[in-house]
């Protein structure tokens, strides 16, 4: 097969390329240039492009750089900022997969005549019972099926995830055995376009007017204040201007419109259900008994999905889900589909 492998400059995609070569495929590497601003992690910096190119040279494959910076800005960064402005907690990595890797890049691979696009994600694609299945990666701690939940049949049919059946230690061992310079490179952390020095606050602070907000308790009494309502996330405990010395209190809801953060005890963080919008399905809609995962490495919790209402009802109370987070439905290790937590008041009341 003619395979285009997306090489981020990290160890996983380096080994993915090597495995595809071993399997006898006709392999070409590419790296997306997504972000022109400051970056210290992930798949955006010139240093990462250099690493990817050097690995491709070591493997003896062609390597191209694709500049999708305009699309990244409009599809990932601007929606990220807008979601924060609306008091939501977006997941830009999911948007990047949806709009860049598995739309823009997959489309480019097709246009260039490649049979498949490969990435270094830790997840597994199998053809089983007449359809393509998206399953968790073999390494539970590194599983990335959550951020790939938007893949449908058409995309899965043209995608390869060569390291999905390996654990991370094995990936590193193979990279080291091949002498690849990325063998010991640390895993990327957090959002690639936000630096560890400046952080989310400074990134958003340059792009948004922050609204100071009141912090109230369930009874409506003002108990603290925040400098930026847009930056408060459900479950947050620090930075709410609360007096110490009592039971821990957490942000349980955020309303940017009225610049109000409501806090409560640990019990108030729990909910019976989560409303989901913009659902996509791996192989058609599903109703009924599922497991629901609401963060990249969150605990999957048993729930009943009501397709009509677009609501997942947890079997036992579960932590509230911040609006904007991805809600992914699983059956065993298989992803069924996913969407975005609506987090409107009715849904979490």
């Amino acid at each position: 097969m003619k395979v285009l492998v997306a090489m981020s400059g990290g160890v996983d995609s380096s080994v993915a390329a090597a495995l595809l070569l071993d399997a006898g495929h006709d392999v070409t590497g590419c790296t997306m240039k997504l972000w022109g601003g400051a970056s210290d992690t992930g798949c955006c910096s010139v240093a990462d492009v250099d690493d990817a190119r050097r690995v491709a040279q070591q493997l003896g494959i062609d390597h191209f750089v694709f500049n999708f910076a305009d699309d990244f800005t409009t599809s990932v960064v601007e929606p990220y900022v807008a979601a924060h402005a609306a008091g939501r907690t977006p997941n830009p990595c999911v948007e990047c997969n949806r709009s860049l890797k598995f739309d823009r890049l997959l489309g480019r691979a097709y246009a260039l005549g490649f049979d498949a696009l490969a990435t270094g994600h830790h997840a597994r694609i199998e053809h089983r019972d007449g359809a393509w299945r998206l399953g968790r990666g073999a390494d539970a701690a590194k599983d990335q099926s959550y951020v790939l939940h938007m893949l449908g049949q058409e995309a899965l049919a043209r995608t390869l995830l060569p390291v999905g059946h390996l654990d991370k230690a094995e990936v590193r061992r193979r990279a080291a055995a091949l002498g690849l310079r990325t063998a010991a490179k640390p895993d990327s952390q957090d959002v690639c376009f936000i630096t560890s020095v400046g952080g989310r606050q400074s990134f958003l602070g340059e792009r948004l007017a922050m609204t100071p907000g009141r912090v109230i308790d369930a009874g409506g009494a003002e108990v603290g204040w925040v400098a930026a309502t847009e930056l408060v996330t459900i479950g947050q405990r620090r930075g709410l201007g609360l007096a110490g010395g009592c039971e821990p209190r957490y942000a349980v809801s955020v309303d940017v419109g009225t610049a109000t953060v409501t806090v409560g005890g640990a019990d108030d963080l729990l909910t019976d259900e989560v409303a989901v919008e913009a659902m996509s399905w791996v192989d058609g809609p599903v109703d009924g008994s599922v497991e629901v995962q609401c963060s990249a490495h969150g605990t999957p919790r048993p729930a009943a999905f009501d397709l009509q209402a677009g609501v997942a009802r947890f079997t036992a109370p579960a932590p509230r889900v911040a609006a904007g987070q991805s809600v992914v439905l699983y059956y065993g290790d298989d992803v069924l589909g996913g969407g975005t937590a609506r987090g409107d008041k009715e849904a979490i009341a």
Partner: protein
Amino acid sequence: MVTYLDHAATTPMRPECAEAMAPYLGGRFGNPSGGHALARAARQAIEEARDTVASCLGAEPGEVVFTGGGTEADNLAITGVVARQGGLAVCSAVEHHAVLYPVEALGGRVVAVHVDGRIDLAALDAALDGQVGVVSLMLVNNEVGTIQPLAEAAALVGERAPGAVVHTDAVQAFPWLDVASLAVSAHLVAVSAHKFGGPQGVGALVVRNGVEVEPLLRGGGQERERRSGTHNVAGIVGMAAAMQATVDQRPVTVERVGRLRDHLADGLLAAVPGVTESGSRAIKVAGACSLLFEGIESEALLVLLDQAGMCATAASSCASGAMEPSHVLAAMGVSRALAYGSLRLSLGWTTTDADVDHALEVIPDAVAQLRERSVITNTR
């Protein structure tokens, strides 16, 4: 076999150059700044090279400063003049980044161009005043191949900002034009060896007598204190040999390559729907063929061409190797969407009929494939 149509990026070394360099990569390794026999031999080689370069550029030997390439020559011109005599730097919007970025870094003025790529002389006039210290206008643009009206611009500078120094980046001009006569109105002239069959990493800046530049590099005081650092003897000797060969063969090359370019451009315009030439061919150098394809991205086109054994480029590349939308096309009023479909085919002294035939065979098919397969794939 590779079809190489990226001569504006770099062109193959001329045999005269490789031959001239060989002794200095071997036994004649002396440092020209020394006093012994080997040093004196090296010194003689660079001074003979200087004579050749001076005559090819219409300068006195003492006016030639050897540099580590065109970028250094441009930086020395802009930064060196401003550092020495002060004043504002002014350049056109279509300059190579080696000029544009130093001008911007010094807080200079950038002058608009017409849709054909030539500088807007009225806009230049408006940008000139007694504060201006240096004005830089390239002789030929590196992306589109447009020849700039340097003499008119220099005359305007003489009138409106008489104290200002005129610099020209002649890097892309030298293979095609008689720089010695065309750049006579410029006080500073930059060239780069590898664009005309010399080695990479060597260039020169002509600094006319009476003009002073502050050095970028200080040290041993070589090049009359204008550029310190041990000479790249082999490179300088090679550049001179390539320059002489270029000048000797230029009329023949320009005639031959110009015909090939017309055949290529006309062939593509006829074979591919939705393609236009950027700029006007009447005012381009013979090797330049710059096209805009609607509805495709040249980044993808270049991959297909590469896989078909063809080397070309879109516009300038950035540090990561990614394609950046061209500032030259933007300045010429080309929309960002159309600029994404730009293809620069640059012919050179080694280009053959077979190269052009191969390009005419490969490019229409590649464009057709991309247009057919440009269905937006949605994961949902």
